[in-house]
């Protein structure tokens, strides 16, 4: 019997400005029932293009070469009608971004029923409802929510609805494109578990696409690593992870460090463990929150931050860890003076934060912010030079502007600084943009840096470089950093201390080794358990 999916020398090129630009080159793959394949790679490596070629869901400017055999039929030779039938009944897709892939004005029941109505013709309403209920049960959603609309569901529930939709017509192949990217670690592990169970229960094949090797390794039995349109490595997960053959797989694997592995401590991807970093002694408290609460709305509004005490000492990196919605970004905004606390005080160097415009401006010369998304954090109309000099111009220090901009860019490892002056954000890579944002903060010579998810929107291999930069800034300049993240691996890689935030409270705080290796609070344990890790056996087999 032929496998469910077989790719033979598959290539896809896009027609751009009269030229064919290859996106996928000569890929060979095969996938059978009960198998799970993880397709890993950075953004732009062609992994989504490859997945969409299976259902021939490519834009008109694309050209598909080679063979794509789905259930033994080559999708390239299928007629329009046959292709329609194949979509959803032989293979279906769980799209990236459950927030936007659902229709906001229709109930989820109606949306799950849609593919069934389209593909299986007329059937009685009661039969349909029965099948929807069955599907909801399979994805572990309460059946009574069938009439709910997408906005009434959480992110994880919406992703479950997407999976139910994909399963509606009983496909033999399920393609999941970044199914957990926008989700919390805890929800992420639940979704991965669900996908794994569905594969073994329904005897289907799963192709999962992600940039995060740890997600794939915990849920797939086979791994394929893509790099610049080519499959550079393919094999059983255990082997690929334990002994990556290609340089790029090694870089990807190193970008998602294992908590507890001493090889990764103070050693962001590709660097050697820093001796100075582990031996550095933190100084006195520099930035401190004392009983800070932040409420939104009046009366019984939202209590985003409750009675938080937190200290960032001189010459240390503190990681503030928590799920989205735990109040960590609000706390950071409060520390920066961008948000007034409802009660409590923020102290910098022993003195309370000023409330006057002028006092706050002086304070902002000392405490600087690095935002999550470097693409949004840079004004697309400003050149790199202007973006970096912006802070200096605000603070009126213009006499040696050019030298200080050069110095800041070089400190952020953009060398030679002059060659970046006249460039625009869109001409830079994601990592370079984040370096520009960091340079824009460094140019004011701050003593504390607040970095809100500094690497969350960056590619795996670039993450390590940016983290190494933050670590080096601390070692070389004694710059204190408060890193806000949902990623415990990141905390393990660069932080001295870690504070865990849950529903507005700091539930645990202490040295990284102590908190992450011997967690005292239940929530910390939940977070740690949810981190996909190599030591778990892939859930899909055995």
């Amino acid at each position: 019997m032929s496998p469910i999916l077989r790719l033979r020398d598959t290539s896809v090129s896009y027609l751009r400005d009269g030229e064919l630009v290859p996106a996928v080159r000569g890929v060979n793959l095969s996938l059978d029932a009960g198998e799970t394949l993880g397709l890993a790679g950075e953004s732009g490596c062609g992994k989504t293009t490859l997945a969409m070629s299976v259902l021939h869901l490519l834009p008109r400017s694309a050209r598909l070469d080679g063979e794509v055999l789905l259930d033994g039929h080559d999708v390239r030779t299928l007629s329009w009608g046959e292709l329609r039938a194949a979509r959803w009944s032989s293979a279906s897709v769980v799209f990236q971004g459950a927030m936007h892939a659902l229709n906001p004005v229709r109930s989820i029941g109606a949306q799950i029923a849609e593919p069934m109505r389209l593909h299986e013709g007329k059937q009685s309403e009661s039969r349909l409802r029965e099948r929807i209920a069955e599907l909801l049960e399979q994805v572990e959603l309460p059946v009574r929510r069938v009439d709910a609309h997408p906005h009434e569901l959480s992110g994880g529930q919406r992703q479950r609805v997407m999976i139910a939709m994909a399963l509606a017509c009983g496909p033999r192949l399920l393609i999941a494109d970044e199914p957990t990217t926008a989700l919390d670690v805890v929800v992420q592990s639940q979704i991965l578990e669900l996908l794994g169970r569905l594969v073994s229960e329904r005897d289907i094949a799963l192709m999962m696409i992600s940039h995060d090797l740890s997600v794939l390794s915990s849920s797939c039995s086979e791994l394929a690593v893509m790099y610049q349109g080519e499959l550079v490595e393919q094999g059983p997960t255990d082997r690929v992870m334990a002994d990556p053959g290609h340089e790029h797989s090694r870089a990807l694997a190193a970008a998602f460090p294992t908590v507890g592995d001493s090889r990764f401590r103070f050693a962001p991807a590709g660097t050697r463990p820093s001796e100075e970093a582990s031996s550095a002694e933190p100084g006195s408290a520099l930035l401190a929150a004392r009983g800070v609460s932040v409420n939104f709305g009046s009366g019984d509004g939202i209590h985003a931050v409750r009675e938080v005490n937190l200290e960032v000492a001189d010459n240390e990196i503190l990681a503030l860890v928590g799920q989205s919605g735990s109040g960590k970004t609000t706390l950071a905004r409060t520390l920066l003076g961008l948000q007034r606390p409802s009660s409590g005080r923020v102290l910098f160097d022993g003195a309370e934060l000023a409330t006057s415009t002028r006092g706050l401006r002086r304070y902002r010369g000392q405490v600087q912010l690095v935002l999550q998304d470097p693409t949004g954090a840079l004004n697309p109309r400003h050149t790199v030079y202007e973006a970096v000099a912006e802070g200096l111009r605000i603070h009126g220090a213009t006499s040696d502007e050019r030298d200080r901009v050069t110095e800041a860019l070089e400190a952020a490892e953009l060398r030679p600084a002059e060659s970046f002056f006249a460039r625009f954000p869109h001409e830079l890579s994601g990592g370079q943009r984040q370096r520009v944002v960091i340079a824009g903060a460094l140019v004011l010579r701050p003593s504390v840096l607040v970095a809100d998810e500094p690497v969350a929107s960056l590619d795996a291999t670039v993450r390590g470089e940016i983290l190494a930069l933050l670590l080096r800034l601390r070692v070389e300049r004694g710059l204190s950093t408060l890193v806000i993240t949902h990623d415990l691996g990141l905390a393990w890689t660069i932080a001295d201390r870690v504070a865990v935030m849950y529903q507005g409270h700091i539930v645990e705080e202490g040295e990284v080794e102590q908190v992450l290796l011997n967690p005292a609070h239940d929530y910390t344990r939940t977070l740690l358990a949810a981190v996909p890790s190599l030591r778990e056996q892939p859930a899909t087999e055995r």
Partner: protein
Amino acid sequence: MSAPATPRAIAWSRRGATLAESWRVYRRDRGGLVGLALLVVIVALAVLAPVLTDGSGLNVTRVDAAPLQPPSASHWLGTDESGRSVLLLTWWGARMSLVIGLAAAALSVVIGTVVGVLAAHFGGWTSTLLMRFTDFFLVLPALVLAIALSTVLTRGLGTIVLAIGVTSWPQTARLVRAQTLTVETRPYIERAKALGGGHRHVIGKHVLPAVLPLVFATTTLTVASAIIAESTLSFLGLGDPSRVSWGAMLKSAMDTGAVTAGAWWYLLPPGLGIAIVVLSFTLCGRALETVFNPRLRGVGA
């Protein structure tokens, strides 16, 4: 070295590059090019009117031609009820229409931009107050207000500009407010605030540069409607009686029975003039919109 020597040079080369790129996109819009060419010709003729023609021909005491003559070799577009050349009147009337159109549009756009940006930037009750104020002007019948203003205030160029300006700004204000709101949610605004930038910095460096292109495109469209408004007011007899304008020409054509007498040469030139100028401004405005809003560009752009 590719790097320019000074920060100022970087800023200027950046602006130059932006302009060149905008022009490249603009050039692809054939309608926009036609509109621009027409405008250049019309504006040049209007500006050079005192040089190219004899302004004394507008003085009724100095003309010797017979009234309401059809087009002939000596008067290409015939004469009006007092024997003045209609060609000369139309030529000079263009000056008035353009000046009032531009001035009124500038006034309206300035008010609209200031109100829109402030409402969106400060939010809270400032926004509520300003937007209710805008709503008030939005529901006022503009023509009636303009007529009332022109009657109460002394007749003259300034009054017409004011009347048109204060009645046409609310649309701009709402548009600018919407645009400002989207810009204000961008992370780079947060970054500017974290760098210590105050209101003036955020508005001046980030909000205005992002909003102004849109405002510029709106202005060209506003000029078109201001010219129509000016003609309407003059036609209703609320204009400046001492100056020639296209609306005033149409009014005297009505009043002196030129229409019933079949003097088409008296009606067509100012009417066509209004149509052509308004059309050119609209074409330019639409083309500018596509330059500043990439989403309006078609496939292959």
